[in-house]
Every structure is written in C-alpha cells, then in structure tokens.
C-alpha cells in the first residue's frame, strides 16, 4: 500500500478499481493546517484526466500492472495487433491507447506492452526507429523562418522537421520519445 507521502508524478495506483497514473502533483499546507496532496490523475484505461485532493492518512493500492515483451504484427479492424513473444498470445491495442506512438510502429518491431490483467493499456517503443521519407519538398534557399529545417512526411504518415539535405526516399532515424529527427541512416 502507498501512503500520501509516496504520491508523486508517475506513480501508478488503483482508484475505483481502475489503474491511474499521477500526471501532476503538488503538496500544500493551507493555513498551517493539515497537509493536502493535490493530484492530477489519468485513468490508464480511458485516458480521462481529473483532479483529486487527498489528505494525509489516506492509503492507496499500487496498480497491478505487468510489462510483457511483444512483437507488432499488423493493423486490422480491432486495432493494432501484437503477439507475446513467449506465449504467442495475441492482443489488440486501440488507436486511442497508442496515440502518436502508432506512427512509429514497424512490422515485427519488438515493444513492451503494459498489461492490466488481460487488457493492454500502454506501450513502450524502442527509443529509435528508422522510417523512410515519402514526401518532402526541396528546401527553398532564403526561407529562414524554420532555420535550415523543412517539413517531411514518413511512410507511416507522420510529419516532422528535418534538415534541408534530407530528400524523399531517404531512411531517417527518429527518437520515439520526442518524435524528433535524429540522423540520416546510411544504407
């Protein structure tokens, strides 16, 4: 069990029988009274955000979550399908759960899926992914608004800023944590 003094950003706990993560946290002691722990919480299943304030003395169950190694297979009507690399069980993650991470999925990519029971609720991608540029206009000299950068779209439909020398058809490395361009990949 967690107590109020364990509360901090990133902690995952059970509220109303569903896993939640603390995305914002502050401690306050108004008027020299009892301490309040103000949390911004995200429901890890529905994604909904809300504020809740706790007083010292309250306790919380840790969220029983498990990370499993999986491989990305394909997208179908049910969503994005992954296979457990140990048990070969298949599960499906919705587009909402993946959010922008869907742009960085490559066939057979090894990922970690966060499981709440039999429900996949989150994904951890490899830090770097290589994707091919499918569309990018040549850089116009004198267009200094974006420095030496220009927009480019990669094979998954994701658009980002790349240096002027990156042409269509080139393979680039992207940091999946930030979504930023890292380097051009030599082939």
């Amino acid at each position, binding site marked *: 069990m967690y107590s109020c*003094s364990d509360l901090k950003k990133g902690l995952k706990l059970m509220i109303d029988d569903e896993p939640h993560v603390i995305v914002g*946290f*502050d*401690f*306050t*002691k*108004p*008027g*020299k*009274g*009892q*301490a*309040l722990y*103000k949390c911004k919480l995200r429901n890890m299943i529905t994604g909904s955000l809300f504020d809740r*304030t706790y*007083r010292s*003395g309250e306790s919380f169950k840790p969220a029983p979550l498990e990370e499993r190694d999986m491989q990305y297979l394909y997208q179908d009507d049910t969503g994005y399908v992954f296979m457990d690399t140990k048990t070969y069980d298949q599960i499906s993650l919705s587009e909402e759960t993946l959010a922008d991470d869907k742009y960085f999925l490559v066939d057979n990519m090894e990922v970690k899926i966060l499981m709440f029971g039999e429900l996949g609720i989150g994904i951890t991608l490899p830090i770097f992914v290589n994707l091919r540029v499918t569309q990018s206009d040549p850089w116009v000299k004198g267009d200094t608004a974006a420095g030496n950068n220009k927009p480019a779209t990669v094979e998954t439909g994701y658009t980002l800023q790349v240096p002027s020398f990156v042409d269509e058809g080139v393979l680039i490395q992207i940091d999946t944590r930030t979504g930023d361009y890292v380097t051009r990949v030599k082939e």
Partner: protein
Amino acid sequence: MADPNQGLAAKQQRLTSRARILTEIRAFFGAAGFLEVETPYRIPCNAPELYIDPLPSDSSVLHTSPELCMKRLLAAGYPQIYQLCHCWRAEEHGSRHLPEFTMLEWYRANSDYRQLMDDCEQLLAKLLPSGKLIYQGQQVDVRPPFERLTLVEAFNRYAPVSLDQAMVEEKFEEHYSDYVEPQLGRCKPTILYDFPAGMAALARTRPDKPQLAERFELYIAGLELANAFSELTDASEQRQRFEAAERQRQELGKPAYPLPERFLQELEQMPEAAGIALGIDRLVMLLTDADSIGQVVAFTPEEL
C-alpha cells in the same frame, strides 16, 4: 571535459538576486535597530504542533522554526531580534515547499501583531522601491497600505461556504486552498487576520474576542509569504496547549517528543511580544518571477 551542470548554471541569475535580497533584508533590520542572532539548528525538541513533523537528528531534532530559542532571547531581555536560517519539516515537498528551506523570523518585545503588519509593508517597500511587482503575469501594487481582510470575510467573499460551515464539514483546508488562497494578494498584498484560536498554538487570543487569535498571514499573488502573531506569554496556558497538541499527535500515531521545559519556564519572564516567520524562498520566487521553489535554491533534494 564534462559539460557544466546546465540546471545549476541556469539558476545563476536568480541566485544572484537572492543574495542581493538577503543583503537588503539585513540592511533593513540593521537600520531598524534589530540584532541579528543565530540559534542552533539541532535542538532537543520543537514546539509540538499537530501538523508539523520534525526531522530527527541523533537523539535531537532539526528545528522546524527557530521560535523557541528566539523567544528565550526575548525573555532574557533582547528587545528586537531577527534571524535568517534554514529550517526542516519532514515530507513537505511541492512547488511551494521544500523539506529544507530558508526562514526569516523577527521578534519585537513590547509590541503586538499590528506592528508586524507595518513591518511587512516597510520591508516590501525596501525590497521593491518601484512599488510594482509582476508575478506570473499578475501585477501587484505593493505600496502600503496592504489590504486587510479577516478570515471570515475572505471565506464570504471567495469560498462557496462560510468559514464556520467549512470547519463543521472538516473541509477547511480544501476550501481555503481551492477558493480563498488563489484570490489573496492579487491587486495589493493581503494581510489575512483573525484566525480561530485553535489554529494558532503559540498565539495570544484577542482580549475582546477570545475565540480569535491575534494571528495574521501575508499573501502576495496567491502565495503565502508569512505567518505572524502576538505571542502568548501565559506559561501555564502555553503548557496546556502543548500537552493537548502532544496528546493529539500521539493519537495520530506520531512520535512522542518531550515538552520544551526550559522555554516554558522562561516564558514567564517574556514581555508582551510579537513574532513573524517569512519564507525567504517564496519571497525570492515572487521577486524573481519563479513559478516553483526549486528555481530559487541552488540545490533541491533531487539535485543532490
């Protein structure tokens, strides 16, 4: 060679302002005839308070405030004293709290909390000669006089329930922090006064209204900056309040501490007096437009 620590380097401007603010505070109190004192950080016990927990240090504790030692100096005949020191409070950590923080306390013999209200106005005038403060986009006119507001009025004005109702529902802290605090000190600094007697363990009660304590808090731009009161000088009353607080602490399963016997003994000699504690880190936050307390200290616990 490794790169310099960017987080530390980024604080240089604010830490420079901080040093200047400390110099000006010392000049202010020096000119007003106050003696700067230093009392030990490690003491046998603090004044027992229900909601403040000290950090143990061997068989002693780190002080949560220098008030006991400073009042013993008052009792010994020091008329006007101030101290700038670090204080420790267990588990207080947030955007406006650090478990180790810097406090300014000053005490005046033969005085009461009204004089301290004037002191606050004068100190801010010294620190901000322009009379204008811009904090997180809010402009505050810090020229005297400050707004004076009772706690009852503040609840009537800003909270959905009255102070009495909030106390009955045991939701004082929630209403106070959600509705009242953010509205305080927005146009002018606010002196919030007339706290219930039960919320000021070391304060004198008002002679005309014994259910109220002669206590006030100073707010600027929603930030609580200082807590002040006329000191209780009745040693037997003080002992009873300490014993009650200690009993409540033990009912909550908190560690037991001895009562500060020497303080209680010497309190009998203490003249009428008033004292105030002002959070230096929060003052620097206001004067350097910092939105979190970690930006105005060189090292937070996470950066050690």
